[in-house]
């Protein structure tokens, strides 16, 4: 049954991908892209990757669709149909596809327990996680401890994106985009005149925040963690911005504060590592923090996940506010 479901969603993913690329109305294309991400997320879930599914659903289907919409309202919603040189790209792409297709013939099959992937490093994680770290979610254990250095890099990637968007979009436009003052007013007010949307939307915000908290702090026991929780928190704020107007969300969450929070999140993560160093252990060796290694690992993971969540939340809010308030800049 599950296998059949997998085939079905995979086929849907392929169809939707084609629809995304083909549709020349960009609003339609980005809605297709949101559906694409959601299907992808359900697919990940079928493939036993709940953490990834949660993150993909929150980030790919939620946040990035909002960002695309915001960007489209500032650029153009139609793509110009242009007949350019298409032969060379098609040939290149076809060759790449063909090469990969041939390579699949010697690849291990899906779910093959004897595949090399399941032999060497992975069993060690499954075997040793209860012994060294003792939290049920192995993904979180690897993410925050065994490969915590990667995750630190990741936090800094998202931080870089945040300050990048901020620095790119803080240039004053030379001439104001061609919108009338009435449209401008509408853009700022958001959906304030839609009573139904406002009431129902506002009901969802606290629930979203609550769910974000669950995902953040329960991530050691069930799917979740800093990344998905951050995306959920940011989604709640984005919902508020969409309902009440982006100027209000920007006033509630000023960019200056957000950038400080994002930097704080990074500093918490790197700071935990530096603290381990100062205590005479390796970088990010949480065992330095306490005498009992399991408790030390527990608190180390708690702290770095908090740093991750803080940075992701702050950066995504920052990016949303920067794009959504651009029309009034």
């Amino acid at each position: 049954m599950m296998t059949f479901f997998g085939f079905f969603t995979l086929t849907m993913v392929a169809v939707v991908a084609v629809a995304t690329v083909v549709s020349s109305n960009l609003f339609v294309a980005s809605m297709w892209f949101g559906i694409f991400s959601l299907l992808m997320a359900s697919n990940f879930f079928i493939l036993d990757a709940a953490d990834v599914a949660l993150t993909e659903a929150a980030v790919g289907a939620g946040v990035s669709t909002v960002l695309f919409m915001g960007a489209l309202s500032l650029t153009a919603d139609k793509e110009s149909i242009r007949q350019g040189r298409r032969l060379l790209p098609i040939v290149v792409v076809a060759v790449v596809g063909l090469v990969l297709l041939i390579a699949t013939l010697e690849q291990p099959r899906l779910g093959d327990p004897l595949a090399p992937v399941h032999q060497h490093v992975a069993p060690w994680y499954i075997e040793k996680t209860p012994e060294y770290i003792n939290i049920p979610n192995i993904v979180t254990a690897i993410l925050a401890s065994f490969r915590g250095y990667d995750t630190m890099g990741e936090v800094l990637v998202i931080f870089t994106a945040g300050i990048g968007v901020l620095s790119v979009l803080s240039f004053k436009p030379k001439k104001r985009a061609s919108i009338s003052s009435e449209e401008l007013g509408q853009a700022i007010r958001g959906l304030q005149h839609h009573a139904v949307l406002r009431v129902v939307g506002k009901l969802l915000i606290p629930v979203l925040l609550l769910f974000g908290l669950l995902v953040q702090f329960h991530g050691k026991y069930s799917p979740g963690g800093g990344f998905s929780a951050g995306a959920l928190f940011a989604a709640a704020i984005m919902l508020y911005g969409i309902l009440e107007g982006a100027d209000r969300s920007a006033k509630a969450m000023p960019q200056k504060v957000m950038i400080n929070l994002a930097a704080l999140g990074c500093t918490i993560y790197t700071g935990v590592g530096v603290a381990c160093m100062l205590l005479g252990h390796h970088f990010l060796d949480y065992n330095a923090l306490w005498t009992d290694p399991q408790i030390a690992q527990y608190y180390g993971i708690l702290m770095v996940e908090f740093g991750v969540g803080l940075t992701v939340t702050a950066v995504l809010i920052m990016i949303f506010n920067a794009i959504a308030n651009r029309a009034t800049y």
Partner: protein
Amino acid sequence: MMTLYDQLPVLVVVLPLFLAPLVATLPSRGKLPWLVATITTALTFAISISLVTQVLETGSLTYLLGNWPIPFGIGLYIGPFSAMMALIISGASLAGLIVSASAMDNEVPAEHQSLLYSCWLLAMSGLIGIVITGDAFNVFVFMEISSLASYVMVANGPTRQGLTASFKYLVTGTMGATFYLIGVGYLYMMTGTLNMADMAVRLEDVSDTLPVIVAGGFLILGLAMKAALFPMHAWMPNAYQFAPSAVAVFFAACSTKVALYVMLRFQFQILTPNLGNHLELLNALIMTLSVIGFIAGSLIAIFSDNLKRLLGYSSVAQLGYIVLAISLGTSAGISAAIIHTFNHAIMKAALFAAVAAMVLRFGSSKIEDLAGVGKQMPLTMLGFALAGLSLIGVPLTAGFISKWYLIQAVLESGTLGILLTLLILTSSLMAVIYIWKVIEIAYFQPARQELPPGRREAPAPVLIVLWALVLANFWFGIDPELVLSLARSEAVNLMGVGK
């Protein structure tokens, strides 16, 4: 108990990464962000020097992050080449930052500078992170840190072309990184590990299978995009031309070479022993690309009318030499590649520093606008000319040492070697032409624009950097022992003794 000395391998990345977010929160006006960034970079540079001496004394260093054993946790690996790359990156960053002390205010509004310097530190630590890690996926993560920070810095360029250049850079860079990730994915699929050394060992069981060959192809392709190898080079001259001048000093010296470093690591440590008969094919492909690259790069450079663009295409050509050396697959080739990586970094940094000074005074980098610059900015132009000599490969300069070892390595491969040597010499002649084109206009044509007397010569910080780099060109041209010994011990590391 670990001492500070034991922590240096990780500190070289962590120090700038720890301080970069703080720089972003500093008040933008005033010199504070610049000062913090410069001090951080100087410390990083000092750590890199210490790492180089450590590697020369005791051999390669390893460091376990989180103290987890190696294929399970992430390990750092610092060999001679990595230590040298860390030195190049932090040195180039320091040079760029000193130049930016006087060149940045002109091009980037003051209120953006704290974000820009934060990105600068992130780019630097990302690049260093790539060269010192021993984990294939970790390379991807740090590649993304450095790339994103670089896109931001290019987008902050003074003209609107900076935006399109940055977008093109972003698309190519992301495609390159994703191709790299596909390659790593296939290697992981066949080995079940991400640690490079472990991968090399475990690949022996599955060598010559199709996924491994595909992995090799995708890795090389992705890294070639990142390294601006010839058909994928289009983003690079644009990015160098439209980025702020001081940023170009930093990028030109090191950013693409990091991708070449990774390519060299994969090529010799992982692919060469495990590709069997297909290695020849891969090498032939890379060699063809590199030869077309250096001929075409030099040719386009001759016809460029913008000095920054000219130097950008010259970089395409010079990277072609490095890749040619890699494609030879011999230990002499490795040495030549490493030596040229180092020497090209110091000459290109010097050239771009001189250009930054000219842009600061003339407000343009079009070659025809720079007429008569030799009389108005004699010290700057002399520095440019001397670094240009090194680029051509005149004896007594670092460039000569590179060419010498490159041609030696090439000649080992028999008759093909003679042809390749001829091509290298042709490309060098082209370098003479494009450097001469600049020198002719600078010295022998009347000035188009008379500079006010007080603002003729470049400001002191730029001059100091420029001349330090020019002297380094001569120093390493006369006494290349440091670079040679690093290159030799890396070649021994990768190829084993006696091969």
